[in-house]
């Protein structure tokens, strides 16, 4: 299970990240290091700062102090779209797709964005229609996430689970080095949750990408994560394999003690 050995390089490193909002200190010096190939879960009770940490890592907001490095480069103050071009992919807690466009158009936009991000010129620049390569890639992506039958449906009519899939498809279209999933199974039924977990695991295996996720559901965490960081009151109190974290005395006391034992 563990992919974390001496030969892998840290891909994403946060050092002493501090983020305050006007009335509250949310992150009080967070340190974490995600290695290439990790499936890294950030867990913690509500209000621990998971979402804010996520935003700081993806570039939605900037850290007040501390640094975020990606492959050794300082990206602390880099806007999100530039980080995406370096290889970040991201999904949102509540799936965000382009609601008034069809499923297919959503993916077309993502794939064409990827084409631009990687500096490739489209085959036929003047044509309105997406190029054959793009259409081929759209087909592939829709097949992979199982939305090929719903390609012409407006995204707003998709079910909650399908919206999540579509969002995943859009993130995949970018072929990210690191995929950031903010509560990928939030609000799903247990069956959908299992299916989503399997889909993410399959995608991870096939594309060999690094994954960072926040999650509430322990089943999902233990099903997907190779490493876990526990965030408590704005600081990381433990990092390790799921088993190590489970056995950590402090974690048991503060957090898992109340949730996992009952789970």
């Amino acid at each position, binding site marked *: 299970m563990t992919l974390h050995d001496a030969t892998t390089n840290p891909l994403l490193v946060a050092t002493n990240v501090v983020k305050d909002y006007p009335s509250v200190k949310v992150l009080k010096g967070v340190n974490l290091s995600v290695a290439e190939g990790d499936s890294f879960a950030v867990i913690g009770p509500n209000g621990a700062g998971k979402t804010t940490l996520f935003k700081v890592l993806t570039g939605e907001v900037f850290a007040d102090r501390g640094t975020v490095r990606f492959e050794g480069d300082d990206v602390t103050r880099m806007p999100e779209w530039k980080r995406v071009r370096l290889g970040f992919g991201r999904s949102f807690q509540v799936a965000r797709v382009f609601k008034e466009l069809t499923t297919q158009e959503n993916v077309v936009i993502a794939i064409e964005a990827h084409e631009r991000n990687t500096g490739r010129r489209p085959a036929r620049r003047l044509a*309105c229609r997406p190029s054959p390569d793009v259409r081929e890639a759209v087909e592939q992506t829709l097949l992979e996430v199982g939305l090929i039958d719903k390609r012409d449906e407006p995204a707003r009519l998709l079910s909650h689970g399908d919206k999540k899939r579509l969002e995943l498809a859009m993130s995949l279209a970018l072929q990210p080095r690191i995929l950031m999933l903010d509560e990928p199974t939030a609000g799903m039924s247990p069956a959908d949750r299992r299916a989503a977990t399997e889909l993410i695991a399959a995608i991870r295996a096939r594309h060999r990408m690094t994954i960072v996720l926040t999650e509430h559901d322990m089943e999902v965490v233990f099903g997907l994560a190779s490493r876990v960081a526990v965030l408590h009151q704005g600081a990381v109190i433990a990092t390790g394999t799921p088993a190590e974290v489970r056995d950590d005395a402090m974690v048991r006391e503060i957090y898992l003690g109340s949730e996992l034992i009952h789970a």
Partner: protein
Amino acid sequence: MMSQASNSTWKRDAAIAAIILVVLVSLPFVTSKGIVFIAGTLALHVVFGLSWNLMFGQTGLVSFGHASFFAIGGYAFAWAAKIAPGIHPLLLFAGAGLFGSLVALIVGILALRRSIGVYFAILTLALSQIVYLLLSYIPALGREDGFTGIRRPRLSLGFTTIDLASGNNYYYFMIAMCTLLAVGLWWVMHGRMGRVFKSIQQDAERAAFLGIDVQAYRLRSFAIASGTTAIAGALYAPWLQLLTPEIAHWTFSARPILYTLLGGVQSFWGPVVGAVVFAVLEYGTRTLHGLSEIIIGSILLVVVLAFPGGLLGGLSRLRKRMNRKTIVTARPEIVR
């Protein structure tokens, strides 16, 4: 399939455009000079509205200063044609457009930096007031009296020269140019760039997480729309042969907004329908002092309150409802 869908859109829109063009081209043969003049002006207003909707309907930018670019194009053309009469008129039209885009770029770099929504609207409104006031103060541009004596140029095309001042030549030239501009806008909206614009209009943050430089694309949308409008303004100058600062006034900036919302935001043809309906209303009520505004205002109000999707939006909703009825009535047969 998307390919089929976009193919049929293309064919349908081309057919509609062809019908409109046939009507416009035949107008001088069947109606009075007054109507032809209105139709020519209407063609410019259509471009004015379409380009505004590129920003609003496609990219989600509400500009309240679109008229200032119409005026900038018009005045730039008139001034350049006066001081350098030797330059080819097509170059002048293109130059006026580029100048409009350039102004939009400079304004946009500042205005789009972080302020969006109502701030962009108010900033563009401030810009339009500045342009309006400057136009009415600068002596070389004719101050409040306006820029007079703008001539319709002679158009040399290499193999032949057309005198745009004679007969209906300038009208036909304008129709051709407006068609070109409208086709250009259609192409932008339906192509790769249009897809990026649409994604920004729907969820700018999501678009940014696809690696799209949102600000750069908003800037592009603003510059393209402003440049197109500047060319329409430049075409307007020799058409009327007179420019007054009124065309930079904010009440004129409200026009494309009215056209778009009246006709419908979602459809390419929305601003066209809006402009035509507006022109008809204006023409029909032109002799009624005060009543003209009351009627136009009331109709606008009714459309906004009763059909928030504009006339075309209301139409498509109606069609959907009728379709649903057919499906419902058809269902028993399928079951059997």
